[in-house]
């Protein structure tokens, strides 16, 4: 097999290999009669990528030996392929020749530069084998198409270290949130959820409401590739436990990313958590400004949040305002969660949700100090508030994992509220002991005092 890539296509090839390198360690090169495929699979076999370049992507493509087609396949280290395209000489490269001879020990890349430098890379072939994945991408129950930029904006809201995200599709909207394994013993988890409407998608075919959970790292990889190609991403999936397929097509190139999704039936340990998460809190329009304020007041966050959510409840009965739950209930493993509800009405949802996320991260970072102090008080308060708020929340949902309202604000001992009493209806200055004493006489009679 011999082929020549030239011009801008070299950059695409370089990006494709970079994308593969984010997923696997080894790359399978599979020449076919009219196309060349690069494939990789990650170490846990949960992600598979196939990037196929059609014949017309190349300025020259010769498959040559049809009889020995079996020998024309190889496995190389992605790292060695990456080395071929490293550096910023991309724009100076005129052409790239790729050559794979039958039963050869090396895969040859020849890069010709404009300043007449010729680089020859001989990549050692590890094995003569190929890989195939069985998956279905046409005719799946659910099919979405979205511009990578929109998706990128959403994905950026999640922490870089986040492993998995959950995608929930409903008939009228899509929710994406970070997946928190409830069996893990991590405290201070931030919960982020982004909500986007059908309008954000180029295509939206949903047979049934579905919730799938998959790895984020691989999604980021294909998103960045799609972003560079500025081509939409197609998402095909059926149900939890079945693979989700991301497809990005650009002219003569097609990249497929197949990701395993979390199977609720086999993951018994986290089944309960998964199922509880499948009934999320109803998404409502919440006001961002008061939330930010509540978050800033650190030590008494739980109380202020509660105060705000109450304020919102009274202002708008439609929004129960479940913002964050900062309680440290023993039953919840001292884990703290906060759910961001992002308005679906706002067309610039991704951007605004990013703001809210950063605020929430700040909150998560600052929380541990404050949680110690509020721990006792809030867990006591919490028990009461669950009783109160529990009825309220159970109108909307029937599970207990959800984010509760924060406990009501107790009578504060803070200085700024000392005079609050004076404004209560029951306040009668005449009841105060010593109210008739005159501490300072009128200024005209300055000589006599009590």
């Amino acid at each position, binding site marked *: 097999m011999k082929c020549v890539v030239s011009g801008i296509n070299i950059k695409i090839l370089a990006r494709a290999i970079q994308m593969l390198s984010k997923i696997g360690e080894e790359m399978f090169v599979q020449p076919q009669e009219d196309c060349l495929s690069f494939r990789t699979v990650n170490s846990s076999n949960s992600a598979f990528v196939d990037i196929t370049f059609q014949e017309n992507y190349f300025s020259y493509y010769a498959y040559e030996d049809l009889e020995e087609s079996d020998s024309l396949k190889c496995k190389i*280290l992605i*790292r*060695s392929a*990456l*080395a071929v395209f*490293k*550096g910023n*000489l991309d724009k100076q490269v005129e052409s790239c020749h790729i050559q794979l001879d039958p039963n050869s020990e*090396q895969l040859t890349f020849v890069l010709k530069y404009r*300043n*007449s*430098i*010729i*680089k*020859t*890379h*001989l*990549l*050692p072939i590890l094995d003569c084998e190929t890989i195939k994945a069985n998956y279905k991408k046409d005719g799946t129950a659910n099919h979405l198409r979205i511009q990578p930029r929109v998706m990128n904006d959403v994905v950026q809201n999640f922490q870089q270290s986040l492993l998995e995200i959950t995608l929930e599709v409903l008939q009228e909207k899509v929710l994406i949130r970070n997946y928190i394994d409830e069996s893990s013993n991590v405290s201070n988890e931030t919960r982020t959820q982004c909500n986007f409407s059908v309008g954000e998608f180029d295509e939206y075919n949903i047979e049934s409401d579905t919730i799938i959970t998959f790895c984020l790292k691989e999604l980021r990889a294909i998103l960045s590739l799609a972003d560079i190609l500025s081509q939409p991403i197609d998402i095909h999936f059926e149900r939890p436990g079945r693979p989700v397929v991301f497809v990005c097509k650009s002219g003569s190139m097609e990249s497929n990313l197949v990701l395993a999704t979390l199977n609720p039936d086999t993951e018994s340990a986290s089944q309960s958590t998964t199922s509880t998460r499948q009934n999320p809190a109803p998404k409502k329009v919440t006001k961002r400004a008061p939330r930010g304020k509540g978050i800033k007041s650190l030590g008494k966050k739980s109380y202020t949040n509660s105060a705000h959510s109450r304020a919102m409840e009274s202002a708008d009965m439609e929004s129960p305002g479940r913002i964050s739950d900062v309680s440290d209930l023993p039953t919840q493993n001292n884990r703290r969660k906060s759910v961001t509800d992002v308005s679906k009405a706002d067309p610039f949802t991704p951007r605004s949700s990013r703001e809210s996320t950063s605020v929430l991260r700040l909150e998560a970072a600052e929380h541990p100090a404050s949680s110690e102090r509020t721990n006792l008080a809030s867990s006591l308060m919490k028990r009461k508030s669950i009783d109160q708020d529990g009825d309220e929340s159970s109108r909307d949902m029937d599970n207990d994992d959800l984010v509760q309202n924060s406990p009501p604000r107790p009578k504060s001992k803070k200085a700024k509220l000392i005079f609050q009493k004076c404004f209560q209806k029951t306040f009668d200055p005449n009841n105060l002991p010593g109210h008739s004493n005159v501490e300072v006489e009128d200024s005209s009679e300055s000589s006599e005092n009590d």
Partner: protein
Amino acid sequence: MTTDYKLIAKLGNLKTVIQLLRAVNFKESATCYGSKNGLKLTVEEAKCMQASAYIPIQLFEEYTLTEDIIFRINLNVFVECLSMFWSNINTTGSTTSLEMHYKVNTQIIQGEIFINKIFYQGVGHPVTILIEEDGVVVDCSLKTQEPDEILDFDLDPETVINKVLLHSELLKDVLAELDPTSNHLELLLSPKSPYFMISTKGLAGECHVQMPHNTEMIETFQCKKEAKSKYLLPHIKPAMKAMLCSNKVSLRTNESGLLCFQYMIKTDDGVNCFIEYYISPLINDDDD
């Protein structure tokens, strides 16, 4: 009394001096040699690699030397002292005057530096660096040591078999992208194809970079016969540092494979400075 100093030097172009010194600062100690042409700092590694930076007298505003001097100095500290007010030098230009003495006594009267009485009482005196900026004076005193014997990598023009003079631009990217997992670098110079080739062999496979021999980036390409020698990549790496600030580089090899990089660095004032690297080849290179 001023005749007692062996060396008084006032630096004019600090930026270039520091650039030159940093380019050879891959080892801690350097041997400084002062002559009427300027200063030369030489750094050696394991007796198989040597780098020298030449600071010509044109880079000094004032340079007085009574006799040739030689001493060993801690180059790290030396560069650090010189670049102490580096940020100010970059922004405000020449408000800093920097003076360097070899065994000096100084008196400071009313914020001005008066250098008088230069005594040279033999080896063992410190190098004093005075940095004055807006009346603030830093006085650094660096201990000197007796110099080690410097290897003489003599590359007699008659023994040179291959010589390439090229613009550094061409080699910069090539050397910067060498496979870091490779142990050594192989240089091939030949009067016939492939003329000029650099190869590495690392974990990521082999890589051959074939350089042109007749483009305008190459000024001279003289090859008498095919020569192929290997050099340790860690020895080549420091030589790349100088590549970044240089304009032109010349490569010369002799019969035994000794490689000499000579960098020409043109200052803003048009003064040419030079840095030289001698790298001896790997002889028993059977193992990869």
